[in-house]
């Protein structure tokens, strides 16, 4: 009888190999997660950990919150302005609420549509920016006049009153409009003009703020470029500052700062949305410190996930400053006004 020893037919080996490969392949196909039910399956290197990136040195916090928050009385607060004699003017829902220092509701000015921004003149006149036009009210809350509508695409997001002028930021058209106090349009500021080295505003979301600084120049946020630009009232771009960074020194995301205010000494108070934080920059735009970070401002801090569009949109907090340098933050999530004062040094 012939016996084969130590040899195996190559056909058998090939058949075994093919069958094994076939079974493994079928098994692998069955394991494919075609519907994504097991998640991305990617390692942690792919994770954008907002909490870690948003963390900063707590010693940078220069302010602390004082007193309980003041309820605005709105379901959706939009903007805050401070008037003379300690009044708050808060725009929201379809009204402007005038509050006293401790939060006592003094006056309600009802509006036909939702206001986006509000400003008070030295004479006590109230300028309310609605979606496409400005409405002017006297101190008693009586409507004096409504200015010419600016068209369907307009979205007024900020308004500021100077001595003789009113500046309105139109986020829809990405332009600042300079009016006289009677509502006559004098000039359009910030439109792209290569001859004057003006790059134009990039406004990806309805946050486009402005203010008049103590040096007499207009400051306007160019949110898409994450910087603040200084313009003369004639519309010449003088300088700008600001850098895109998730670090505490910069402005993060697509479009920040969402709002800002000027301190009496020319420093800036900025409010960012998304990663909600309020910070101080000196007059040259150098980062000085933090008024409040995500942990101080929002429940959940940087880890907070906005589950609705409205919730996410509300994350653009407004800020205002009084002559004493106290900082008022309009919390558009909780619909309150919160007061922050500088910590005692040393």
């Amino acid at each position, binding site marked *: 009888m012939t016996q084969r020893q130590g040899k195996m037919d190559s*056909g058998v080996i*090939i058949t075994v*190999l*093919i069958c094994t*490969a*076939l079974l*493994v*392949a079928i098994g*692998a*196909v069955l*394991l*494919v*997660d*075609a*519907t994504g039910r097991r998640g991305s*399956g*990617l390692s942690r*290197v*792919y994770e*954008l950990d907002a909490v870690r*990136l948003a963390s900063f040195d707590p010693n940078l916090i220069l302010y602390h919150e004082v007193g309980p928050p003041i309820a605005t009385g709105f379901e959706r607060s939009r903007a805050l302005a401070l008037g003379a004699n300690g009044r708050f003017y808060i725009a929201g829902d379809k009204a402007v609420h005038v509050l006293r220092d401790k939060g006592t509701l003094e006056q309600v000015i009802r509006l036909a549509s939702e206001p986006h921004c509000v400003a008070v003149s030295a004479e006590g006149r109230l300028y309310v920016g609605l979606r496409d036009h400005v409405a002017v009210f006297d101190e008693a809350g009586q409507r004096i006049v409504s200015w010419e509508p600016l068209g369907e695409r307009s979205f007024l997001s900020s308004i500021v009153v100077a001595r003789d002028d009113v500046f309105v930021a139109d986020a829809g058209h990405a332009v600042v409009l300079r009016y006289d106090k009677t509502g006559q349009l004098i000039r359009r500021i910030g439109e792209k003009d290569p001859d004057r080295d003006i*790059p134009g505003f*990039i406004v*990806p979301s309805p946050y486009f703020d402005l203010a008049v600084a103590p040096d007499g120049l207009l400051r306007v946020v160019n949110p*898409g*470029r*994450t910087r603040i630009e200084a313009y003369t009232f004639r519309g010449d771009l003088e300088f700008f500052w600001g*850098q*895109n*960074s*998730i*670090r505490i020194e910069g402005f*993060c*995301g*697509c479009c920040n700062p969402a709002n800002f205010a000027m301190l009496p000494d020319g420093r800036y108070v900025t409010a960012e949305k998304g990663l909600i934080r309020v910070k101080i920059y000196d007059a040259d735009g150098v980062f000085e410190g933090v008024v409040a970070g995500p942990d101080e401002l929002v429940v959940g801090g940087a880890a907070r996930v*906005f*589950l*609705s*569009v409205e919730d996410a949109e509300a994350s653009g907090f407004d800020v205002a400053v009084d002559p004493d340098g106290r900082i008022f933050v309009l919390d558009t999530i909780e619909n309150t006004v919160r007061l922050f004062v500088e910590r005692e040094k040393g």
Partner: protein
Amino acid sequence: MVRPRLILVALAALLVVGVAALGLERFPPPEFETDYVRPTTTAPNPPQGLWEYVDAGVLAVTLVLATVLILRTRNRKLIFALMLFCLAYFGFFRNGCVCPIGAVQNVTLTIFDPGYAIPLAVLVFFALPLVFTLFFGRVFCGAVCPLGAIQDAVLIHPVRVPRWLESGLRLIAYLYLGAGVLFAAMGAMFVICRYDPFVGFFRLSGNWEMLVVGACLLLIGMFVGRPYCRFLCPYGVILRQLSRLSRWRVTITPTDCIQCHLCEDACPFGAIRKPTEPWPNKEYQVARRRLAFLLVLLPVLIGAGGWAGYELRQWLAMVHPEVRLAQRIYLEENALVEGTIDASDAFRALGRSSDELYAAATQLRDRFGIGGALLGAFVGCVIGGKLLSLSVKRRRTDYEPDPASCLACGRCYRYCPKEHERLKRGREGLVRH
């Protein structure tokens, strides 16, 4: 007089300035100057405009070259060289995308979704190989397809697959094509791309399951020539039918077949058909009765397939993300599962109502009922057609490649003595001249 070179330089400078001007307008991307590492994505970047046209151009040129090499030059080495170039270019350089196999789904989606506009390059990738196949046989499979090339490159010890097994396994490709078309038509998934076994090798990344599948197919491909092309490729199904109609196609002999039998085992893909003997009368009578029976069976198979496909609608519909979401929302709303998932959170954040979602899912399921019935009928028709083809004897006097199965690889040429004669005459002609 202005020199042409100066004009070119000026145009180039203008182009550079123009690009810079366009760049100025672009939205500045956020900068993460932290220690966050931006990961490399597994999918390639979206094709850029110019590259799409370059790819289409390379496809056209390689198809022309393949046609010349396969039908006129008849040189396996050159065909293999072109195949390696296509593997390198379409596979590793262009990351295996766009490919005509996946383009079947783009074309289907274009037909069924008016909101989807198919890119011109994808349309070219889909249509050009079909046109070439219609005229010249499967020259695309032979030398241009990177998926075919990667398998052809590893074929070292071909074994014969029995005809019955080959015919049976080929049904998978028809089913795969039907499923690919159905899911693309419903907007559910590009299943052919999702289960591409070789794209992970081309991109040097991918999910491990498909990399394992690809490795297994290559392992099998060392012994069974081009298993993906023969038993799985959905595009190959279309090419098979068109190749039957082709006017010019691969022939083993350059002149007349001398019935030497030398080429009989030359094809690693089992595509060479032998000359046929006339049927004995008794066998012919049996075959006639069988044919009549199968002709009656055909509509039954189609109907049964259609019914089975319709009954599977619930299962098929689960491939659609909207239907899966509806099921998840239902389970969550009725406390049948704990917690939520990202998709259900996102659904609620968008403010859509559950009723609206359920209505959409029901509508989709009904559409899957129709689509499933058509898919089932198609599979029934293919099975019936295959049985019918087995019962029909084709008269063949020479050894010749089966027009549908021949992958135009050019391996059989050198087995033909007539081919050697041709080459010899060619060499002598060269010497004389």
